[in-house]
């Protein structure tokens, strides 16, 4: 599976039966002007370089700070989309509900990290909050990526932190399934969710160029 699958956005909505085939086309068009590596955004670092490294409190901090960045980003994305006032009906309900969850996740992780919590960067969502369609596709990509990134780090966490992270990751999976169903895509495309390595998750985030400063 290509490592850049998730944050690139599908180029058209595929009916549920065809979605497996359509996934190969996910890479085709990124809403956020993919291609050149991070010319307008900030290059994110910050996950442990190795996919397999022994859990430790210090590594928990690194992983939680990356999770915090994703949550900051998601929370800001839903907030901006709602502020633009273009979302109606269930999509609006989705953004309100999920946005509140992401804010709660930010608060939870910040509390866990204490003074080690990274600051909130500024974001530029590059027009993706401007209309309902690009909003929905971008939300889908962000939620699927959140699941894959957290799943990938689960074995690298100490047990206590894993228990806390597991309470968040399944909620992200619910968000992903919800927006997929709204888009008439398969809410659960695989029997097991493909994890992303630290490198893949970082690269996927960088490709969006959503992060302007960190």
């Amino acid at each position: 599976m290509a490592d850049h699958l998730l944050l690139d956005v599908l180029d058209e909505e595929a009916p549920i039966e065809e979605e497996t085939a359509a996934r190969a086309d996910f890479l085709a068009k990124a809403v956020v002007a993919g291609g050149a590596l991070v010319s307008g955004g900030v290059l994110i670092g910050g996950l442990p370089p190795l996919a397999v490294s022994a859990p430790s409190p210090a590594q928990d901090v690194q992983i939680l700070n990356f999770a915090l960045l994703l949550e900051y980003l998601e929370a800001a994305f839903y907030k901006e989309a709602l502020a633009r006032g273009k979302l109606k009906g269930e999509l609006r309900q989705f953004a309100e509900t999920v946005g509140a969850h992401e804010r709660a996740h930010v608060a939870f992780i910040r509390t866990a990290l204490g003074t080690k919590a990274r600051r909130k960067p500024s974001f530029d969502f590059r027009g993706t909050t401007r209309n309902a369609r690009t909003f929905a596709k971008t939300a889908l990509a962000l939620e699927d990526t959140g699941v894959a990134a957290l799943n990938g780090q689960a074995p690298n966490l100490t047990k206590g932190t894993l228990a806390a992270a597991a309470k968040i990751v399944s909620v992200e999976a619910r968000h992903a399934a919800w927006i997929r169903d709204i888009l008439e895509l398969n809410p659960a495309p695989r029997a097991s969710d493909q994890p992303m390595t630290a490198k893949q998750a970082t690269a996927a985030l960088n490709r969006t160029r959503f992060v302007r400063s960190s």
Partner: protein
Amino acid sequence: MSELTLESLDRDGALTEALAGVAGDSRASFLRKTVIGGGALLAALAAPRGAEARTNDTAILNYALALEYLQASFYDEALRLRALRGKLRQQARVVGAHERAHVSALQGVLGGDAIKRPFFNFRGTTEDQDAFRKTAVAFEDLGTAAYKDQAPLIESRGVLAAAIAIHSVEARHAAWIRRLAGIVPAAHAFDEPLSKPKTIALVASTRFVAKTRASSAPLFTG
């Protein structure tokens, strides 16, 4: 539609034996095969530290297998009885296939240590769309909570990676069927775990697990 848990489905118990018998297993040999999907992981990562760790993970995997048997059999029966239409039928086909894949993956990992599939009597919930929907919501929310509870107890990194990859799929299933049932797909900012004794008690309260094959026949048809 109100939120629904297994408690409200039916009373009295039977799965207790099947699930509780899982608690103290031995002779682990679960690394001989890999898990589908997320897990060539198992082969690549798993490095159990000793017999004790393997025994503990075997018990956890058999507990997961018992829950997957329950889910897979439920969807299979609903489809076999042709009780579902439209989006609900589509959901049952996709999710049923996932649960079967989870069953075979767990069986493959457990090998000779895998518990046997019990008989089930779904008491009409596979024969009626509304009852099916409610039961599926309860099963998927329960599955998510049960995996979440067990994940931090798993010793092997590979088994953990596979379990966590299934855990989020159960959450996707839950969100999907909740939307079909008209319930908010993600009701809370944090999903809480459910302990093994509480999970077993809930499943037992349904009386879905039967002593014999005969009692697994549909209560009625049409």
